[in-house]
């Protein structure tokens, strides 16, 4: 059996915008981790923008999509600009298009 790509999240507070990187499979098991990472970064008074980097996400379903939309909402509530980084032709863009949400987000 193929081993699922393990999920990994990283935060770079020294970057501008603050970069939250998600790698691996983004599903129900990791939905809250992404939201928490973005919310925490956006809560920093010095933070004006957050980039959620999904370039290396290997799989995303509606739980992953929900994490992105919740993170977007949390950043906006904190008055912080929210952009996502995606790989054209990758699983994230494919899911955004299937779900019809590609136009809901700003891209890096």
């Amino acid at each position: 059996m193929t081993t699922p790509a393990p999920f990994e999240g990283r935060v770079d507070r020294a970057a501008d915008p603050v970069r939250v990187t998600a790698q691996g499979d983004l599903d129900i098991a990791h939905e809250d981790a992404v939201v928490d990472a973005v919310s925490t970064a956006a809560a920093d008074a010095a933070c004006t923008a957050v980039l959620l980097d999904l370039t290396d996400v290997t799989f995303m379903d509606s739980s992953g999509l929900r994490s992105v939309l919740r993170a977007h909402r949390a950043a906006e509530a904190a008055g912080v600009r929210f952009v996502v980084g995606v790989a054209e032709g990758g699983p994230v863009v494919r899911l955004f298009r299937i779900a019809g949400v590609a136009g809901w987000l700003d891209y890096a």
Partner: protein
Amino acid sequence: MHEHLVFELRLPARPASVAVARALVRSSAALTTADAVLVELAVSELVTNSVRHASADTSDVVELQLTVDDERIVGVVRDHGPPFGVLQGQPDVDNTGGFGLYIVRQIAELRVEREGAGNAVTFVVGRSGPGNGPRAHGAAGDAGCACHSSAGTGSGGGGPT
């Protein structure tokens, strides 16, 4: 038309089980890469749906069956949860729930039925063109290989729940 069982799987109704179900789809020699991408997404959505709606009982399980024939791939996910409906139309930006079944309906036929004290959710995906044979890896690439797997309730991995 020959129908083949790809696998049957019983999993604990917890979040880590979703990745286990996907991994079995990914590794199936009976599916082309193009078909596996769609089936993996449908399986992930429907197992997730069952996990979200499962009872609080930690012994609750989700069952997944996948079969293929010459023209289509049929998946059935069974749970013991309460009945649920399927939203008509696309969820909106202010309602981040409801995307799972919507997504499945974009890529497959979807049928939700009440079965005893639980739900039986069936998806059907048409197989990709005749030029796309089974993937090269696996048991000699035999599309008829019925890899009858059975993961017990203790094998769902150790991820967060």
